[in-house]
């Protein structure tokens, strides 16, 4: 018992006091600043996942691999801002010269202000987003403080948080899980794989038909999405204080 107390005492206080205003390490590739004179087609054939469109950098496809920043530091600069979550697919495209991410509209007019239950479905992907979603409930990031919890059964859930590009063999399981969630229910896409298929978008083993029927209300980019981005996104979505 006493060695436990000693370990706990020496361990000190690890929790981040306020994950919404904490500053992250400057090496973290967050919101990109695209300068106006950047040649988007040159950047696009440089990018392993061709994430650049004519209107700018599509964060849903970007893997944050930093290749473009290292090759052309003056055209594109990733600065350490983890607030990347948005509530519609188009808002993920960063136009040249854009400096702020758009706001997220809260859901359920106050029903979920203090209590929000999420059910995670891992459909393909590389297990990094699942580990980050798990890490968002650990002692440091602690999304539980806002009343969010990741529940065991879809029956208890209010939202389905999808990680992974929906492999062919997980398509029906995802539909069953979605049917099992009582209304009002919401869909959250966490990570580049869930939003756009990520690095596996060109694979023939995927079946993303589910996303054609159901509209997601929160997109958290990143490969994997950083726990702080997850906490920030869901906190804004709930409309918590």
């Amino acid at each position: 018992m006493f060695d436990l107390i000693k370990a706990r005492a020496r361990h000190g206080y690890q929790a981040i006091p306020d994950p919404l205003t904490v500053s992250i390490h400057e090496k973290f590739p967050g919101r990109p600043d695209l300068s106006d004179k950047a040649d988007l087609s040159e950047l696009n054939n440089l990018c392993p996942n061709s994430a650049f469109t004519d209107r700018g950098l599509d964060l849903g496809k970007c893997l944050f691999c930093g290749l473009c920043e290292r090759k052309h530091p003056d055209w594109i600069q990733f600065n350490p801002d983890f607030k990347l979550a948005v509530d519609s697919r188009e808002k993920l495209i960063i136009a040249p010269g854009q400096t702020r991410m758009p706001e997220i509209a809260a859901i359920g007019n106050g029903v979920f202000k203090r209590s929000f239950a999420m059910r995670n479905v891992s459909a393909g992907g590389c297990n990094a987003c699942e580990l980050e979603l798990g890490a968002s409930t650990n002692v440091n990031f602690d999304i539980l403080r806002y009343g969010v919890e990741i529940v065991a059964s879809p029956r208890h859930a209010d939202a389905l948080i999808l990680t992974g590009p929906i492999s062919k063999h997980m398509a029906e399981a995802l539909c069953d899980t979605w049917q099992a969630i009582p209304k009002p229910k919401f869909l959250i896409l966490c990570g580049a794989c869930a939003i756009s298929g990520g690095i596996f978008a060109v694979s023939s083993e995927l079946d993303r038909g589910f996303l054609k029927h159901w509209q997601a209300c929160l997109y958290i980019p990143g490969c994997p999405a950083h726990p702080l981005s997850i906490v920030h996104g869901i906190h804004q979505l709930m409309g918590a204080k």
Partner: protein
Amino acid sequence: MIHILIILLLPLLVPGLISRVKAIMVGRIGQSVFQPYFHFAKLLRKEEVISSSASLITAVAPALALAATFCAALFVPMGNSASLFSFKGDFILMLYLLALAKAFMVFAALDSGSSFEGMGASREISFTAFLEPAFLLIMAALVFSTGFTSLSTLLSSYSISGLEVWSLVLGTITVFALYLMLLVESARVPFDDPNTHLELTMIHEVMVLDLSGFSLALIHYTAALKMLIYASLITQVLIPANASLHLLWYLIGILGIAILTGLVESLMARFRMNRNLELVLVPVTLSVLALAALIARSMGAW
């Protein structure tokens, strides 16, 4: 009137307090103390998804379980020393009302036809098989020392008075046995981990995997009320009968039990499933021990 107020408002506070203590022990920011209330409010406003293999039982069980537990709570003295309803031997009715609630919870679990609920139901009902004899033997000890009357008079006339060594010894044995029963009935750590995410290890949580919305809210409230019933029994034994401002002592007692449970949960790991059954026998042996001591004393052994 206070009794009804406590039954309606206090129960969901106890799990909130326990999770608060666990968060502090571990250094988390953690949920607020009123988080169970927020969950309850949100669940009330959600729809329900019912399993296609569910029959009438799934609709009936949560409501009947809450009704039975509510009526059982009427006999337990909360707040002041006398309970709302009391007649001679009402603790037997209280115990069997809780058994009725548990039986219908088990039926609701088996109704969904999935093997997890079956597993939870089987564990829940076999672990609590030993609690009925334990509770009645504890009541036998109380009846032996103060005569056969209602639950509230038994508890108030039995409370620990510091000076007399006998009531101290018997009081601690009874409190420890009741506390173990609280841990088993409300599925706290050494027996079952309430916020685990592994359906193969849950007991209480897995029985409600298939309930949602309003029924789930009722189930959470019933579980919290059952925990409050056992906590009130323990507090009632601890508070001396003639203590003034009985309500204040009662609330402090409930707070103490919640903190103690939180400490136990953060310092101990869960027991293996078949070890749980052996530990459930401890309240039975404790109550028999208390009885034997009482008999020996009355026979003038010392």
